């Protein structure tokens, strides 16, 4: 099951609309805005599988697990662990920088300084219980991605994106089974197709 809510960002849409209006009024057309795509998406990570669920930021789609050894995917999720396509995790050229601050005010990604997964258990994105990217309540088992934390991602093919995980929910309660089958990850990201680090 995939619950997709792909949408062209309102910001991008607004820019296009104001651009059209501007065209009528001004003599010199402004330079075309950078084609940064803003996406909010949800993917399901089942508990039953032992392999990562792979995702392509360019296509805003899950990549088939059989393509795990390709550069078609940018990141993968298994339970709370997140891998980036490069080095120990895949053939890609990816990397990640974990940032603290406000996602919205981040306008540029640096072109270097990205970390990668050194071994299969030493990942660039810290998924530790207290140190990692989420809060986990040992008592209620609620996961909540730490607010203010987001990732600058270099994709497998060398493009830049900023990504924030918005929520992690349990799903797949099939009565009478009260234990969930999967986690639903909801995240948003901006992907820059022109190869620059500007969002």
């Amino acid at each position, binding site marked *: 099951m995939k619950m997709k809510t792909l949408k062209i960002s309102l910001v991008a849409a607004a820019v296009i609309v104001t651009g059209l209006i501007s065209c009528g009024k001004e003599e010199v057309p402004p330079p075309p805005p950078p084609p940064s795509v803003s996406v909010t998406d949800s993917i399901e990570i089942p508990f039953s599988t032992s392999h990562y669920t792979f995702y392509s930021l360019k296509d805003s789609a899950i990549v088939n697990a059989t393509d795990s050894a390709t550069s078609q995917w940018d990141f993968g999720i298994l*339970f709370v662990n997140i891998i980036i396509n490069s080095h120990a995790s895949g053939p890609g050229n990816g990397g990640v920088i974990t940032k603290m601050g406000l996602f*919205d005010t981040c306008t540029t990604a640096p072109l270097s300084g990205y970390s990668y997964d050194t071994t*299969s258990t030493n990942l660039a994105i810290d998924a530790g219980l207290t140190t990692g990217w989420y809060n986990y309540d040992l*008592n*209620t088992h609620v996961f*909540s991605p*730490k607010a203010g934390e987001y990732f600058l991602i270099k994709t497998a093919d060398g493009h830049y994106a900023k990504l924030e995980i918005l929520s992690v929910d349990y799903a797949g309660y099939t009565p009478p089974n*009260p*234990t969930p089958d999967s986690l639903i990850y909801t995240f*948003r990201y901006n992907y820059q197709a022109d190869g620059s680090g500007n969002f």
Partner: protein
Amino acid sequence: MIQRILYTIFAIALVSHASAQTKQVEDSIPKLLDEIVVTATKTENKVSNIPLPIQVISAKNVQLSGSQKLIDILQMQTGLVIANNPLGTALLGYPNPFGEGIQMQGLDPAYTLILVDGEPLIGRNAGIINLGRIAIGNIKQIEIVRGPATCLYGSDALAGVINIITEEPVKNQLQLQTHYATNNTLSLTGSGNIVHKKIALELFANRYSSDGYDLDKNIYGKTVDPFIDYTANVKLIYNIDHKNKLTLSSRFFRETQFNNYLIYPETLPEIVKGTTEETDGSLFALLQHRVNNKVSYASSVYATSYSNLANAYLQKNDSLYEKIQLTDILVRPEIQVNIGKHLSSLFVTGAGYNYEHINSTRYKDVNDLNSWYLFVQKQIQWKSKTNIIAGARFDKNSLYPAQLSPKIAIAYKFQPRFILKGSVGAGYKAPDFSQQYLNFTNSLVGYTLLGARELGNGLQMLQESGQIDPNININPYLNEKNLSPEKSIGVNAGFDYTLNAHAVVRVNFFRNDISNLIESYNLPFNKTNNQSIFSYMNLDKVFTEGMEASFTYNFNQHFSIFGGYQYLIAKDKEILQKIKNEELYKRDPVTYVTTLVTKSEYKGLYNRSKNNANLLFQYNNILYKATAFITAKFRGSYGYSGLNGFQNGSGVYDDDREMVNGFVLLNLTISKKIGYRWEAQTGIENMLNYINALLMPNIFGRSYFINVNFKFEK
């Protein structure tokens, strides 16, 4: 904050002092504070002579409530709140294996010491002692001391002490009680006292059973499974001569609970049935010897054992699914010497040795824990108006650094009717066995929990068996790391003001600073199945502060009223620091807008109510020999992590969408004497039918009971 509290107290004191001068000064201390208590000083003394916040629940109030459950009586008291272990509530309507305990001054049940006749109950399950282990039919009184009592009682007494004092046989007596209530709950109690010359014997027995109940029909199995409890107590007092008294007592309790629930070994559910058996027994011998009119001593041996045995079988083929067993044994010889002529100027000293032995399926080895302790306490009466108690206890344990816990308490009587009280004390809580020795791998998810002392050993085993990547360097973790005890400093200050012979107002401000709180953490590497490894370390610092106030008013022989209120703030200091450093963010779950958490948004620790209030109203009709007894408890709103799936990424209680609404529990009992020996009681508990199956699985809706009591004295 402490300074502010003190100023407030002085201000109130001055006002009260001024107003009192216009009234006639009474010479004697009014009777309301004349109850004799033992918990606060380990010697008998009047409440009014003790500079500590102490509360007494009398046998009469216990009897008038008609209740059979200690926890129901305790939760009706000022500032005492039932805290379900959140691990239990997280099971979403499943039987809560940890039960519920009492939160005192905003601290979890693990931080309150539960004593029976001054000796501790052992066998905490996730920090909680099942209070159902204490039958209430032979309680003489319940004494509640707030604030650290570690200086006398050692570990666990950070928030305070609840001491259940059982009856002493003083005359020939036979008592029988039948209690029948909703959910086919039946309690049969019999007790007999025989007093013959120098020997007094008390026998007590209780059988208590219930069908349990189910608050969520959509979930297989009951919320509370059916159970049967048996309790037997024997107490023998031999007054050898006017100088020597020997007390022998024994307590036995067994609860069998009949479990029936679903498990999910793979994706298909399986029915599991079985029993959980909790057994608790103790033997106590005490010899009190009066050397002369100045010196007396008491030597005692307390031996207690607790075991919890759970067997679960798959229904389809009767094969054993799981067996969990825990046995805990404590033997404690102790000697106490009292020197002094007057109750208010005693010097008390004592020493003891704890031999504790624990054995569980979840610990690798059988573990012994030996410790010894020494305590001293001096009471001083100075110029008839000031009472001072200074004391300290030294605990030496093989597992963690020695602990010195001092305490000082001062009471100043402006007038007999107005007593100012203040105390400062240190408390500690030893790391429990699971935090030290647990070696547990969750079979469903695959994570591993290792106690601090088991960490090196456990990691080596995991790496040898290939569950940790051989390239990971586990060496930094192989050296045994000691957990330090959790420590607290508790300050209590307030006053008792007696308006007249019928009315008293008591106010206490408190502040508890806890450091070294033991929390679980995960190691920076995972297992090869990518699951985390957890262990324990000393991490957090929290504080709780607030005010407890109560008033008693006995209008006349017909009416009396008792009311109480607690205001509470409980916060994590590290969170406050993060907010100050602008490092803590929250994300609106609807708009996804991220902002910094402000100091005013942070409401404090989860599961703490800012406001609590309680009311007790008693009406006696002498003509009809009938009594109406009404108790009410208001628990204000509190935070619950992840309520209704709410998450804003801050990890703290800072949003109203995590707020559980407050509620009121209201109970009514009517008692009527029939002749000299018989009494009938009937009552309604939870009249307003408050139910919250998810968060308060211990509260059944409205329920009814009838009691028939028989008492014969000679």
